[in-house]
């Protein structure tokens, strides 16, 4: 049996066994869960091979499974996050209900993601895509009754995406006679002009839903914020990347062959940039950390889409690098929220304050991830952002780069809101009992934040696989062209050398930290946050001095016009209108026998009247 089959079988069997192990013991369940993930990951990482190909023969359809360099790269993300978030999930799910349900769907969606990545034909791609959709759907509605709307929204949009993909798939089959992706690529040139437009558009719609692209993104904030946080880490970190994965393939193989190439690229890139800008504004407005991060995820995915859509070698590198980085830091942040929610019982930024001394390790993870998210050097996020900007500037997208830059700068606001809301500010008595999260939750976060630090100075660890993945899809080899060891170039030959930057930042930082910290450490003493200069007033214990209400009100007031229109509302109104229409069709069946008889007569009469036209 082939490695890929073994991994899939282990996943499915593990999911089933884990789900039913609840009868035995909760710990056995945990062990089985972790065991399944670890076993599959170890098998995967020990047997990485892009040459093998498995074919499952069904009489009329052949399912072909195998790894390509690109899917290998995404599989890194999936498995890495799956292992870390898996350990975290064990910690987070302690003492919660419906554990078996959670584990089952978690494993199933990981398996489905892996399946998507190893699919070399469109049918198995679609099968795994749908398994991923419904397993994640079941986790989105994990929290019960009040998330039904969210669940339906997610599922309907996923269905729209999936079905447009399905339509593309059957069209492709009718045109090329095969479901293989390679046949699609080779046969694309021979298709008619209409089909050449239709197929990429349908596919992009399908992938755009998962990548939360502009008009299709309305499910994302609710879905991300309502799933359990240990799953949202995967959801936002890895699952959304499946959309990116599909987009990369479409852009690399199909769009390049079109005469309207630039137009489509520009449209998608602009959609991505607008997504990024708008969702950043909405993220600033949120008071719930989960929703904040959810909107932030949409924004970050917008950048990735911009990079992928522009499609120059540097932009592709940027998009894929950002995809990895986003997986790393955003899942860390979701884990941070999950840890805080577990310890305090709420994730509302207005309620929780001053946890920095209570949960220092969580804070460190959050700080590093936030810096990476904001794209500040010397962490990994900067590298991706730099490449994105340079590629946009050198490929003549000046207004686009301004828009992207705007959303990236505005992202600072919610970054700060997140850190300040949870960790900084007044230390309230209400949270004085809070302890650091258990080690099984903290260690994955710290490992992930370490990865963002390392990638800041050694991005070649990731850029090399990306390069090989892109050259597999016949993009030029950029090894010496655009980047070298710790040094990135743009098209015009300008460069950023990362190592001296890291050293410089580190040296200056250490010098001044030492100057401030060690010089004053002995003479100064810690005082609580109640001891502040409030015009001499002594704050009472119960008085809440933290500034939380209307946190960025002035800014929001300035950008109000951009936030007036909500896609969500339009879509809901549309759905409402449809329901009313359906209510009208329901009235056709009025329960009256005579009416039905009249229908029958009318039916006959219409057929008779039309018989000349019908049966010519």
């Amino acid at each position, binding site marked *: 049996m082939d490695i890929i089959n073994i991994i899939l079988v282990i996943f499915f069997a593990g999911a089933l066994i884990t789900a039913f192990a609840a009868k035995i013991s909760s710990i056995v369940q945990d062990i089985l869960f972790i065991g399944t993930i670890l076993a599959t990951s170890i098998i995967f990482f020990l047997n990485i091979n892009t040459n093998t190909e498995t074919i499952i023969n069904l009489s009329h359809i052949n399912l072909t499974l195998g790894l390509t360099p690109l899917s290998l790269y995404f599989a890194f993300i999936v498995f890495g996050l799956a292992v870390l978030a898996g350990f975290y999930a064990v910690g987070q799910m302690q003492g919660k209900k419906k554990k078996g349900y959670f584990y089952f769907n978690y494993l199933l969606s990981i398996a489905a993601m892996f399946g998507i990545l190893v699919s070399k034909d469109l049918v198995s791609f679609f099968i795994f895509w749908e398994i991923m959709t419904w397993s994640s759907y079941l986790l989105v509605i994990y929290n019960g009754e009040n998330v039904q709307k969210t669940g339906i929204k997610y599922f309907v949009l996923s269905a729209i995406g999936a079905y447009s993909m399905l339509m593309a798939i059957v069209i492709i089959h009718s045109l090329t006679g095969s479901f293989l992706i390679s046949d699609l690529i080779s046969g694309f040139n021979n298709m008619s002009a209409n089909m050449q437009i239709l197929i990429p558009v349908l596919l992009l719609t399908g992938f755009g839903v998962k990548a939360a692209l502009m008009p299709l993104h309305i499910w994302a904030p609710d879905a991300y914020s309502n799933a359990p946080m240990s799953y949202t880490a995967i959801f936002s970190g890895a699952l959304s990347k499946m959309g990116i994965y599909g987009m990369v393939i479409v852009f690399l193989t199909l769009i390049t062959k079109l005469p309207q190439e630039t137009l489509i690229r520009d449209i998608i890139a602009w959609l991505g940039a607008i997504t990024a800008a708008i969702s950043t504004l909405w993220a600033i407005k949120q008071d719930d950390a989960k929703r904040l991060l959810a909107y932030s995820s949409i924004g970050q995915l917008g950048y990735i889409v911009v990079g992928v859509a522009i499609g120059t070698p540097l932009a592709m590198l940027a998009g894929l690098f950002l995809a990895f980085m986003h997986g790393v830091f955003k899942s860390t942040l979701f884990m941070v929220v999950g840890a805080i929610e577990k310890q305090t019982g709420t994730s509302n930024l207005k309620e929780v304050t001053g946890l920095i001394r209570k949960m220092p390790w969580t804070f460190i993870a959050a700080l590093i991830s936030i810096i990476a998210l904001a794209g500040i050097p010397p962490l990994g996020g900067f590298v991706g952002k730099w490449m994105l900007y340079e590629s946009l500037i050198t490929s003549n997208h000046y207004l686009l780069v301004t828009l992207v830059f705007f959303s990236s700068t505005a992202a600072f606001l919610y970054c700060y809101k997140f850190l300040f809301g949870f960790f900084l500010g007044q230390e309230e008595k209400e949270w004085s009992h809070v302890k650091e999260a258990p080690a099984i939750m903290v260690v994955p976060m710290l490992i992930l934040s370490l990865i963002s630090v390392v990638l800041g100075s050694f991005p070649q660890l990731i850029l090399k696989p990306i390069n090989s993945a892109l050259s597999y899809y016949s993009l030029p080899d950029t090894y010496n062209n655009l980047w070298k060891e710790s040094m990135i170039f743009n098209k015009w030959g300008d460069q950023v050398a990362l190592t001296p930057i890291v050293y410089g930042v580190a040296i200056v930082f250490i010098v001044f930290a030492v100057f401030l910290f060690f010089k004053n450490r002995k003479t100064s003493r810690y*005082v609580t946050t*109640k*001891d502040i*200069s409030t*015009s*001499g*007033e*002594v704050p009472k214990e119960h008085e809440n001095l933290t500034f939380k209400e209307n946190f960025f009100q002035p800014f929001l007031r300035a950008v109000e016009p951009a936030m007036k229109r909500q896609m969500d509302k339009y879509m809901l109104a549309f759905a409402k209108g449809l329901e009313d229409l359906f209510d009208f069709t329901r009235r056709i069946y009025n329960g009256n026998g005579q009416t039905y008889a009249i229908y029958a007569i009318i039916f006959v009469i219409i057929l008779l009247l039309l018989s000349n036209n019908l049966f010519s």
Partner: protein
Amino acid sequence: MYNDKNKQKIVDIIKNAARKHSLWVLAYGTGCGAIEVPATMTSRYDAERLGVRGAATPRQADVLLITGYLTVKTLKRVIRVYEQMQDPKYVIGFGSCTINGGMYFDSYNTINQLDLYLPVDVYISGCMPRPEAVLEGFGKLQELIGKGIANGAQQYKENLDFYRENQKKVIKNWDFQDYNW
């Protein structure tokens, strides 16, 4: 002859020279004296040319300027503000109310003598003192700093029990944290 003691002295002289010309004032605007401070700071009298400058919070300030009578309620806040200031710090009592109660000598809720509660470095007399007098007071403070004898903070630190006793005598609901050093 270079030795540790001399070195300390030289450093002190330099430090004092700097402190003397850079007085950041936290004007605690109680009573009617608050109206004299803007006049002192702005164009007519321009205290900034002496290095006197307003500070926004006690953490940044050097000089605590108490501009008038202090009720018991205000005194509590003033003590807290003083204790939040960082060394070196100085107190200027401003107007006769801080000296002996002034026209509020028999009020039921006003302290009469500031130096029982806070170590005052310089008093400026008058009801109210004109900006010229205020500038003169700053000049006096600078002189004292230059000589190294404006050591009110030191005095407060050493005689903390004395001050605490006096403060607690008038402030009945004593709920302070410890002194900040």
